């Protein structure tokens, strides 16, 4: 009996020795990230949506860009984090890396959806269509499906570890899509415009870069804050699961011993 309980707790300690350290740092970061995100949204949104100048061609429609572009950066950045976390999990069996990847996926999916929806709302008045199957739009839609596939695959197995591994492999395989998205506008001709960043600098007026960076900062800090919240609840859920399991082990152990 004692042995089985001990084993359960050993597993527990092994699993959480690292997370405790990790969460100590994460919990210290949390109020700063959440506060900064709120501040950047409060300052950035009015500038982006009201006071910043209208574009010489797009007019007021340019304001969609201040949501679309940060969401686009985020959907690729979050996938990058997910891929690195998945690699660290597969190679070094780092449980926190896997947890960060798993907790990031729904956030990445939401950023991708926001990017696609804002882009479509901009495309209709500017291009004359909501959607075209050009390389940039198609590869971004694939990114969205990769996020959904990653979430679904991770939850598809009875054994959570098998789900984690399968999802991590999918995340790594899908990471080839990141350079394709980034360089699609340079490698092929597309309807989507090229990047505003080039060797010559930004092709965006300074008065328009300010709201762009404010919103990007707001999105990044929002991601960090919500990620920490998700990690907290994931760890608590795992603790409850383990406590239940050891409870079951205690209840069943005497019968097994007899």
């Amino acid at each position, binding site marked *: 009996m004692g042995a089985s309980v001990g084993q359960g707790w050993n597993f527990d300690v092994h699993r959480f020795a690292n997370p405790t350290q990790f969460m100590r740092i994460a919990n210290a970061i949390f109020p700063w990230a959440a506060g900064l995100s709120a501040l950047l949204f409060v300052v950035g949104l009015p500038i982006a949506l009201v006071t910043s100048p209208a*574009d*010489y061609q*797009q007019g007021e429609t340019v304001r969609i860009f201040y949501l679309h572009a940060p969401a686009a950066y985020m959907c690729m950045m979050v996938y990058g984090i997910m891929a690195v976390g998945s690699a660290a999990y597969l190679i070094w069996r780092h449980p926190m890396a896997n947890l960060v990847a798993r907790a990031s996926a729904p956030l990445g999916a939401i950023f991708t959806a926001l990017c696609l929806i804002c882009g479509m709302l901009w495309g209709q008045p500017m291009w*004359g269509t909501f959607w075209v199957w050009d390389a940039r739009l198609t590869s971004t839609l694939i990114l969205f499906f990769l996020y959904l596939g990653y979430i679904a695959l991770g939850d598809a197995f009875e054994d959570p570890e098998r789900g984690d591994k399968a999802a991590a492999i999918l995340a790594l395989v899908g990471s080839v899509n990141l350079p394709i998205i980034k360089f699609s506008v340079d490698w092929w001709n*597309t309807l989507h415009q090229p990047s505003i960043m080039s060797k010559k600098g930004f092709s965006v007026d300074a008065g328009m870069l300010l709201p762009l960076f404010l919103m990007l900062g707001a999105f990044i800090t929002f991601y960090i804050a919500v990620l920490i919240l998700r990690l907290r609840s994931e760890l608590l859920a795992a603790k409850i699961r383990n406590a239940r399991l050891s409870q079951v082990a205690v209840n069943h152990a005497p019968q097994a011993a007899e």
Partner: protein
Amino acid sequence: MTRKRRRLYFVLLGLLGLGAGTALMLTAFQDNIVFFFSPSEVAARHIAPQQRFRVGGLVETGSVVKNGENVSFAVTDMSATLKVQYQGLLPDLFREGQGIVAEGRMGPDGIFVAHEVLAKHDENYMPREVADALKKSGRWQEGEGKSTPHPTTATE
């Protein structure tokens, strides 16, 4: 240690193989991934008359003739020009010097009959006054933005 090493190499090799495979595949499908052909490419390829495709380029200055709903204009990539006929609504950004993409078929008379015309936006964002000031000082011209169908990438 060795097992971790082995897993690390396995993952790196896997990614390398996957990347190489994807690169080969994308190169092979190059023609299907490009969203439009430039007028020079259209001239160089023999596209069947009933084949639907897209042509992209700048609307040639002075070529737009509007007659009610019927519009005719020329699309150019600075080395070749293609005449386009279109019936319908044009996007707001459509104007001379603007990058556009038209989808349709070649007519028997060598005029491209478009079913849809999309405007291509470039990566330059600036307020009206800045654009006016730049134009006044002669440092920049509308439609000059390199974004719109580059003739260089079109030759690939």
